Structures are given as C-alpha cells and as structure tokens.
C-alpha cells in the first residue's frame, strides 16, 4: 500500500532540478520565470529543489564544455532512479550558435541520455512547461516500469 502511494505521488508531484551548463542565461531566466506567478508550474505539483538527491527531473540549459561535463555527469549520477532529463534551448540540443567554438563539446545528449528536447533560442516558458509535461509522461512510464 505504501509503495503504491509513493509511486503515485512521485509521478503526480515531481521535483525538478535546474542545472545551467553553459547557457547564455536566456533559457535559465525563462526556466526561473516558469516558477513565478505568471506561469507558476507549482500548480502541476512541480517544485524546484537545489539538491540532486531530492530531484526526479533534471532540466539542463546550455552547451556542454570540457569542464562542466564532469559536473553534469556527477549531478546526473547523484539523482535517484527513476529519473528524466529535459534539455532546453538550441544550445542544450546541439550547441546552437556556439557549436563551432573551441571549448564547446555539443549538446547535452553527448554526456547523459536525454528524454525530451525543448527547442528555441531562448525557449519560451510555454515551451518549457510543455516540455516538462511531456517529460512527466515519460517519467510516469519509468516509475511504472521500475515497479
């Protein structure tokens, strides 16, 4: 009984963590704007946390470079299973406008598996919320599979 309760609340109230990889802040502030009164993702039961060990969903913005890819991998490894990753913005998808720069490795999926891609430069809050909702469906499926 207790197990099914946890399972249900996990998918109904996912806790997200935001990590800025190497973004220009455009997508970051849009992610933060999602939490504020106009967009307010808390109405979906989503809470932003600062500790990867509490988080279910990881939002990543920006390009991956040689230094922060270790941090990104570390944070991803610390998150408990099951987990979902949402890459936000053109940079998080492919490297965007910076793809040729010497210190840029590329998109987030070169380092960790990504479930949902949210395009845009910067991605609009509506698109981010849409991406999070799409990510939640995948996350619920993963919770189901994990049993």
């Amino acid at each position, binding site marked *: 009984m207790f197990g099914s309760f946890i399972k249900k609340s996990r998918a109904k109230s996912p806790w997200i963590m935001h990590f800025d990889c190497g973004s220009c802040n455009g997508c970051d502030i849009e992610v933060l704007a999602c939490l504020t009164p106009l967009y307010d993702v808390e109405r979906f039961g989503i809470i932003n946390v600062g500790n990867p060990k509490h988080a279910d969903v990881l939002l990543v913005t920006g390009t991956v470079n*040689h*230094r922060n890819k270790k941090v990104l991998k570390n944070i991803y490894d610390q998150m408990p299973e099951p987990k979902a990753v949402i890459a936000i913005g053109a940079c998080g998808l492919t*490297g965007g406008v910076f*793809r*040729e720069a010497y*210190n840029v490795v590329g998109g987030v999926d070169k380092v960790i598996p990504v479930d949902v891609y949210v395009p845009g430069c910067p991605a609009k809050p509506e698109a981010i919320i849409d991406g999070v909702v799409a990510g939640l469906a995948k996350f619920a499926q993963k919770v189901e599979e994990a049993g």
Partner: protein
Amino acid sequence: MKGKVIDVTLDNVVGEVMNMKNDGQRLVSFSTYNAGEGKIGILYHFDKALENTHLRLVADMDKPIPSVSGVYFSALLVENEIRDQWDVKFDGLVLDFNRTLLLDPEVTKVPLANNLKIGPKN
C-alpha cells in the same frame, strides 16, 4: 581608437603602469591581439574621469612578460585569461592558475594563437 596611446616596452611596462596608478587611473582591462611573427600585442586600458589612456606593448610570445598584478590586483584575472588563450608566461603573477582558469587539460591547442582553426563540427 578613442584616447591617448603610449607605447611601452618589456622593461618599462611595470613602471609605466605604476605611474598610471599614482596618477589615480583605474585599470579597465587588457586587450590582446596577434601582432604577427610570433608576437602578441597587449593594450592596457586605463580610465580617469571617462578619459581613456592606453599602453601598448608588443612582445614575443615565447618570452615571459612582466606581470602588473602586483601593482593592480585586478590584473590577476585578465593575465590568467591571456595565459589560457595565448600560452604566454607572466613573471610574478600573484595567483597563477597555470592555464586552467578557463580551460581544462582536454584542450591541448592554444585557442587564440594560430595553431587552432575552428570549423563546422558534426
């Protein structure tokens, strides 16, 4: 370029920067450029009451350049950045990150010197 430009050499750069400090100038930053034939050009930008003064130093890339971080502490970051980008050594740098301020060991080429060409990635 707006402002007065004064040419300096490796020998008198620290002294000239010291004069600037005694004159009450604020160090804005340095700019670097490729001066050709293995030489680096460094411009030291100063500001006082919105008036710009620049010191121009043209030096060999393979010889150490005297650091001015002992005169202006704020030169520390920009000198480390130049070390990252050009692989130029600075003599007497207060805190030397040894080319790890911005770059990681995976980047073996020197970004702004000529041995790195960037192009499309796949």
